[in-house]
């Protein structure tokens, strides 16, 4: 039977990674994700793995690139300003088609910002983040349990698509402590013929993102584009009390979990309000949003920023119904009651009954 433990969201990430066979971790400290390197520094030596505190975020992402090129399961983690520093390496991973898991327990920005929870990195995460025409798969957990489960999934997806996978949490998701069921990882390791394992008995091969021959880069980019399109089947989302909802709330991560209580509050008042929570924010659950836009009278997006995912929701809804927005910049976390009140404003504005 799976063991149930009370652990921090950050610890759940580290434990999920180790359970999935991650044996290399490279990082550089930053609040609010320090429990990840702390845990890795204790666990990795006992497992014969490698924990390395690099001299910088730039060094740690390039160490990830090097280790992952050999076919190993590798992870790095940081928080917003540190993730910005890693973007060059993430772009190289995408260009070279090297899998790796990058955790962003995001804090508030721009700049050095602060250590409050924020969802201000949504654009950066879902639009690639570094230079060039690429995408990363982005998973957005909302509980410590999902941190554990989705970290295991992140390694599978990274290898399946030979692509960097990002876990986008925030300070709340990293610092919360709650019960987690430690399920066993059961997937069999995949063949990795692309990995750089020494060329004994075979031709040499190279992993690179530089393509200078005529037409070579065009083909490379089209191939990558097809790959990103094929990732769409990995879409994951959760609906909560969505049946017959007239007003469908859309939120991810920390706001997604807080809104479940708001939905309960509103349902108790007899208001048909539901929740659609994207778990993958890239690929974005376009069809689910489109369907909600057709079935509900209005959509309302709530985020810990001044309006980012709302753009994806509007694109997906294709004007099938109005899309309203409530955003909260960093500083305080909205309560379920406050968000229920904001939803009621839209309820009245849209004349719902």
């Amino acid at each position: 039977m799976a063991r149930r433990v009370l652990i921090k969201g950050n610890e759940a990430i580290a434990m999920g990674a180790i359970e999935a066979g991650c044996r290399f971790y490279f990082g550089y400290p930053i609040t609010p994700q320090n429990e990840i390197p702390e845990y890795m520094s204790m666990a990795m030596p006992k497992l014969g793995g490698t924990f390395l505190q690099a001299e910088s975020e730039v060094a740690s992402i390039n160490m990830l690139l090097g280790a992952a090129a050999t076919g190993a399961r590798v992870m790095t983690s940081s928080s917003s300003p540190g993730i910005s520093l890693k973007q060059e390496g993430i772009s190289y991973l995408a260009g070279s088609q090297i899998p790796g898991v990058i955790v962003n327990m995001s804090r508030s920005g721009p700049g050095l910002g602060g250590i409050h929870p924020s969802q201000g990195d949504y654009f950066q995460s879902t639009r690639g983040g570094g230079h060039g025409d690429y995408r990363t798969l982005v998973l957005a957990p909302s509980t410590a349990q999902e941190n554990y489960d989705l970290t295991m999934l992140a390694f599978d997806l990274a290898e399946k698509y030979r692509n960097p996978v990002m876990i986008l949490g925030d300070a709340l998701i990293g610092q919360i402590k709650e019960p987690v069921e430690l399920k066993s990882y059961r997937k069999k390791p995949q063949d990795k013929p692309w990995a750089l394992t020494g060329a004994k008995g075979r031709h040499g091969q190279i992993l690179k993102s530089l393509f200078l021959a005529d037409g070579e880069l065009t083909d490379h980019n089209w191939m990558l584009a097809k790959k990103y399109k094929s990732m769409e089947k990995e879409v994951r989302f959760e609906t909560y009390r969505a049946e017959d909802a007239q007003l469908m709330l859309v939120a991810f991560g920390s706001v997604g979990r807080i809104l479940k209580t708001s939905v309960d509050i509103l349902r108790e008042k007899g208001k048909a309000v539901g929740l659609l929570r994207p778990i993958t924010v890239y690929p974005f659950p376009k069809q689910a949003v489109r369907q909600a836009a057709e079935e509900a009278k209005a959509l309302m997006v709530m985020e810990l920023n001044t309006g980012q995912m709302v753009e994806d929701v509007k694109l997906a809804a294709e004007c099938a119904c109005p899309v309203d927005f409530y955003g909260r910049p960093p500083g305080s976390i909205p309560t379920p009651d406050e968000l229920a009140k904001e939803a009621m404003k839209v309820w009245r504005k849209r004349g719902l009954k």
Partner: protein
Amino acid sequence: MYFDTIIAGFGGQGVLLMGNVLAYAAMHAGKQVTYMPVYGVEMRGGTANCTVVISDRPVGSPIIHEPVSAVVMNRPSAEKFGPMVKKKGQVFVNASLIKEGQFTTRAKTVCWVPTMELASDIGNRRLANMVMLGAVVQGGGMLTIQQVADALSGALDPRYHKMIPANVGALKAGARFISEQKAAKKG
């Protein structure tokens, strides 16, 4: 069943441990629970706090602006969190360090617990936090003292397991104090 509390005091008073033990006991009792600490630049002698939410239903927000209860171990915490507690709520005050009139609250129930004196009575002033936790569990009614006592072995590092009997004694001393106060009021 729903209960939430903000536990606050000086760093070193054991406020985060109180929250951890309470959350751990709630998990073992089959409840839904979240524990949220402050995670900034806290240090010994500074202030620290954590929020624990216990419920039969999944917990949406682990951060509470208007708590059902607050546990204040020092005066700055009483001043900060006392006024936030709901009208129908409870404030558990460390009467060893905080005097009447030093903070405001709307809360109907204010429990003054002489934590250090009660801890001294059982032989160790450093158990003041566990005395307070016993009072909170007895007064809040979200779990039984036995459930919290049973959780100590899982919640505490094995290095401190030899201290478990003393901690259980402290929990019971705090609970007894609340029961006696209630009985005295009725009588």
